């Protein structure tokens, strides 16, 4: 079936991709309620010390090299007062990472509502969503499956999504989530 000339062409396109991929910039938006662990996650991604975190007024941004991409990660404060500003950062988002404090059961409803509203946003339509069920290092943390069910994630049909259990403090599960992110940028950007 294969004609003799397709092999070198395939090789060429792979080479071309290898050459161009490190320059590919990706915009990642990190959202979630206050105290969900967004900034800790951001610092963990950038391999920085996570022991002096303070609540975020406004936003933080860091660029991280990962799996051939330059990830520009925007960490926006989660306090109720500044949630209205979230929409200013929607444009051109490649992946949305939504962070949940798995031990803060009292606010599962609130965080579910915020996520549902985000998924309705036109500027975020079709954008892949990774939900980090964070703080799994705490005894009281709800398992990821329970959170997925509570948030009705299985009803999401208009985009690819994933839920990943993690602990931003110990970094457990973070890399798995980021691998999913990078895999799904590739398919989207093609």
């Amino acid at each position, binding site marked *: 079936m294969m004609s003799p000339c397709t092999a070198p062409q395939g090789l060429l396109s792979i080479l071309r991709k290898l050459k161009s991929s490190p320059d590919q910039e990706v915009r990642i938006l990190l959202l979630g309620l*206050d*105290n969900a662990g967004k900034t800790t996650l951001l610092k963990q991604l950038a391999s920085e010390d*996570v*022991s*002096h*975190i*303070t*609540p975020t*007024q*406004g*936003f*933080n941004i860091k660029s991280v090299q990962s799996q051939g991409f330059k990830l520009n990660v925007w960490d926006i404060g*989660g*306090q*109720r*007062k*500044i949630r209205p*500003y979230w929409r*200013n950062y929607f444009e051109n988002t490649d992946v949305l990472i939504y962070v949940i404090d798995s031990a803060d059961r009292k606010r599962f409803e609130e965080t579910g509502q915020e996520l549902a509203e985000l998924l309705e946003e036109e500027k975020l339509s079709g954008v892949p969503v990774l939900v980090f069920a964070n703080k799994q290092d705490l005894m009281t943390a709800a398992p990821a499956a329970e959170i997925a069910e509570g948030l009705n994630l299985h009803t999401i049909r208009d985009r690819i999504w994933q839920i990943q259990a993690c602990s931003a403090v110990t970094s457990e599960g973070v890399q798995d989530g980021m691998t999913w992110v990078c895999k799904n940028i590739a398919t989207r950007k093609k």
Partner: protein
Amino acid sequence: MLGYIWQYFYTSFFRFWLKWILRQVTGKCELQRICSGYKQGAPRTSRAEYSLESSKSKALRSAVSVDEDQVEKCVVAIMQEKNIHSQKDPTFKANLRVCIFQITGYKKLYNSVENLRKEVFDSENKAHEDMLLKLWNLLKPSVKLESRITKQWGDVGFQGDDPKTDFRGMGMLGLTNLVFFSERYTDLSQQVLSHSNHPKLGYSYAIVGINLTEMAYSLLKAGTLKPHFYNGVLGVPHLEHFHQLYCYLAYEFDKFWMEEEPTSIMEFNQYREKFQEKVKKLLEQPDVSLSLRELSDQ
């Protein structure tokens, strides 16, 4: 590159010979020249610190980390080692003593600050809870807190209805700073709080305060605050001096923010950075002392 090479040759050869020549000419060792030739405070203590740290003698090098009750013994040992006589240089002993108190005191201050920072705010701890309620009463003396967990906390700039999750990596250091400012400078802190409720330029008072604690902490940790403490405290600095510095930052940041008129709170980190650069510039001046004390000590 040339700078590095020069630095290398200077510290390993030239500095030694330069010191030797100066010693022959003036009849005094480097520490004596520093203690008599430079003004008390950062100009003298910073130089003495460098001199002690880079000394070849163990007695001198260990001086920068002795315990408070060993300082006297340490000064005597240095004078013996360097063959300095009190009759010939009567002020030396007292001057060096102050320098060593300041140098070792700064390190001790960092340890105390670090311990307080590591103390996590705990709702089960009555002392912690009382302190939080005290903060409310100082900031809002005419408003009663309806319950421990309430949206009212938002009025003093906490994020949600329970402040306990807002102290994060700053722990009890953050709360202690906030309470100290309100207790020592009640009117000023209420004035800053009212600015933070400005309809256009508003910000979250408590959260910004905790971020400023982090600023003070990281400046202390990096050693950037040395000139400030060497000039301001002629002895061992204590936690109170650190809290005083926080008050300076809280008051000055508010002033800076209101003058700069940022378009929204989302620009906080850019302005925080800009403000920190400004403070660092001040700290480069040899006679710096960042103080609110003269302004209004109530």
